[in-house]
């Protein structure tokens, strides 16, 4: 597939919908600008109603933006209908043509492009090989499992060699185990083909596993864009921190600054962390503490009371109260550790380097 890779650029894109109940207009997507690099795998992540699917459908051409312009490579594509855009979409419901068999489903786009018969056969077979469906080409789609149907949908999108591959929550109809193996598969194929991919999901672990870049969306705007690590370790706000994995928020007042380090007072307990230059003494700040970064000890940290203690197999799940703040934590590999019971008073300990100040 020797094709010039193309990126996607959104410039100040907005989409306005009408609320069917109140009849009022609202922004489904608001003033969103994005640059998606050629060949990268980018995920649009967010809760339902955050505008991620609308954004994807605008890129595919099913919806028209009310403001702004979308570029595929350097070409503005606002006025192009979906069939004229060099994008291919993998749908949540697979959307295979039920009256065609596997081969004809995959060949559909090529037939529309009037590709010679011999070439169609070759390309379809190659793609089916890539998605590991060789030998299934004569099956009707309803004779396939969910995972196989998803592979057909992927093959059908890939075979026309689009500039950009669009995924609309493609794994949400599969069971948990299959979902994990399919996402590895999707990543493998995307890297083999080297195609630009935009992937919509509300599942943060899926986003982490797949993406070069994650775009977290909330209420129609981009909350944060970055690599999975950036987003996980340095979320820009409570929403992002909470949406990506579990997060505890500790509120504290800044007491003193010593060079890079600042000291926060959390419920009277001092905590020394890496500070930002703009932080002011006396102001309130929120610290993000991931559950796996903390553990319990008899002494040496912040005093706390255990309110929940629950064995989860690979870890012991605790909820503790530090002052009035509830902190959730996961003590991994709990077999040889002391287990604290509900009602016990103990100490919450964590490495100050593992927390992030918002």
């Amino acid at each position: 597939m020797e094709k010039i890779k193309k990126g996607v650029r959104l410039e100040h894109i907005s989409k306005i919908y009408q609320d069917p109940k109140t009849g009022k207009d609202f922004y489904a997507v608001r003033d969103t600008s994005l640059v998606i690099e050629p060949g990268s795998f980018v995920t649009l992540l967010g809760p339902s109603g955050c505008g991620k699917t609308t954004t994807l459908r605008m890129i595919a051409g099913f919806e028209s933006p009310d403001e702004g312009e979308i570029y595929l490579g350097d070409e503005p594509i606002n006025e192009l209908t979906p069939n004229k855009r060099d994008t291919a979409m993998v749908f949540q419901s697979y959307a295979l043509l039920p009256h065609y068999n596997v081969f004809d489903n995959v060949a559909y786009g090529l037939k529309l492009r009037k590709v010679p018969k011999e070439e169609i056969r070759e390309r379809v077979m190659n793609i089916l090989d890539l998605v590991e469906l060789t030998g299934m080409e004569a099956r009707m789609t309803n004779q396939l499992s969910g995972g196989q149907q998803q592979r057909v949908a992927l093959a059908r999108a890939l075979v026309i060699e689009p500039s950009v591959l669009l995924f609309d929550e493609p794994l949400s109809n599969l069971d948990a185990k299959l979902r994990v193996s399919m996402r590895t598969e999707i990543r493998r194929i995307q890297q083999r083909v080297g195609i630009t991919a935009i992937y919509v999901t509300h599942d943060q672990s899926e986003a982490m596993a797949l993406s070069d870049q994650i775009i977290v969306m909330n209420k129609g705007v981009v909350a944060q864009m970055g690599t999975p690590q950036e987003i996980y370790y340095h979320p820009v706000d409570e929403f992002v921190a909470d949406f990506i994995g579990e997060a505890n928020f500790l509120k504290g007042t800044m007491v003193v600054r010593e060079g890079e380090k600042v000291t926060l007072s959390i419920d009277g307990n001092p905590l020394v962390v890496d500070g930002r230059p703009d932080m002011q003494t006396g102001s309130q700040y929120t610290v993000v503490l991931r559950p796996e970064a903390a553990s319990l000890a008899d002494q040496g940290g912040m005093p706390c009371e255990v309110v929940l203690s629950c064995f989860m197999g690979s870890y012991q799940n605790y909820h503790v109260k530090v002052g009035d703040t509830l902190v959730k934590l996961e003590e991994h590999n709990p077999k040889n550790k002391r287990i604290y019971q509900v009602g016990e008073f103990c100490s919450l300990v964590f490495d100050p380097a593992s927390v992030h100040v918002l």
Partner: protein
Amino acid sequence: MARGQGAALDRKKLMADPIMVTTIVLLITFLTLFILYPLAILLVDSFVGDGSFGFSIFKRIFAMPTFTRAITNTLKVGFVVGIFSSLIGLLFAYVEVYVRMNRFAGGLFKLVSLLPVVSPPFVLSLSMIMLFGKAGIITRFLLHIYDNSVYGYWGIVIVQTLTFFPVCYMMLKGLLKNIDPSLEEAARDMGAGRWKVFADVTLPLMLPGLGNAFLVTFIESIADFANPMIIGGSYDTLATTIYLQITGAYDKAGAAAMAVVLLCITLLMFAVQKYYLEAKTAATLTGKASRGPMLIEDKSVKVPLTIFCSLVALFVIMMYICVPIGACFPTWGYKFFPLTGKWFKQVFTRYHGFKAFKDSFVLSLIASPITALLSMIISYLVVKRKFKAKGFIEAVSMLAMAVPGTVLGVGYIRGYSGGLFHTGVLQGIYGTGLILIIVFVVRSLPTGTRSGISALRQIDKSIEESAYDMGADSLKVFMTVTLPLIKDSFLSGLVTAFVRSITAISAIILLVTPSFLLITVQINEFAEKGSYSLACAFATILIIITYSAVLLMNLFIKYFGTSRKIKED
């Protein structure tokens, strides 16, 4: 917030698709010319028919005692028929869903639901007269009553009830099957008896549906032309009064005003049914029940219910059978044996039967694929596409559902006999086969569109989107994806359109010219003249044609339908 750009882009994308645009424009033209315009011209004519604008024509017709009597007659019949039909329909539906029937009773039920579909709307009037009239087999020869009159109010009520209750039965059956059995089980579990469950759970849930069935029948009844014509005697309803006003009194302006009155009544009913009751029905009964309901095992309930329904069903079937048998009696009312084929022979030798069948058959055959395709296109546009004129297309095709055939017929006379707005434009189509075909199409379009819409709603929107995304344009998507997926619905739409066309009478009888002989018009004429044997002979052949069409369709769907293959999940 400005939504201008999005709307402009949507418009541009639409314009980039010339086939779509042409289709939409043609469709709008068709709907405007042949549904909206004829109704509009009725309004115009009834206000300015005699030169000056005003209510003078309405004043005139409301001063006619025949007209005011016709209004009360129509409403009285419609109301009673609506109640009877929905109650009998409910009983049938309840028995079918809640009682395990033996095969015989099951077969009877199925036949009852099929017969009204394949037979012309007025055969029951014929058999009613032949069984219970002055020279009726039952009244005269079994009971020796010599002066029984079936003509008039009760005749119409009985015949219409028997004709329309199967529709209610099918509607209510669908609703009963959708009741989640756990609701009733919960009531049983808390100690309610079978009767209490019916009164407290089933019936309240069915109430909007029952109201819906009542109104649908009510509309059918007041729009019905043929039955009151044949069995009404001097008891005139609005449809027959309008017909007589045109054919007897040559008062076209008066007829137009009367048609407006009839239209207003049906539109009002239709609006209530459509926007109030249908929404309520959908709100109370959502989703499909996962399993069947608890069947009634109690013999004291089961046996009488089954027997009663089977008797009604047998009676209805007997009335239908009476038609072919009646066509074989040598002299109706006097000589029953030996059975003879002479009437059938006369149909073809003396009464141009061949031409009548050919005309009806050919016109319906031309109309049905147009109807089927048009209704599929409308449903596709309504369900799957977004564009500005969509609301208009949807509303007008719905409107056609509420327009009685007689009203449409008068509208066409007023609208096309002098050309568009009496200017002579398009006058050429008046009196031709073309206008008959158009009437056939318009009359069957709503049913086709309705079934097309419900078929398309079952198809995941993203299937078409995926084809579009792969590079297919609208025409390609429609031809390679949409149509194959609703092939069964298309085929049955085709046959329904054919059957409805070949059995249609109300609008057609006003528009047909001597150059065309139509079977239904012939049947009506012979029935009017009292030549029941000939009418029966015509009707029998007609039923055979329609029934074969339905059989053919079922065979075709069985062997060539795609949906079966797809549904095997």
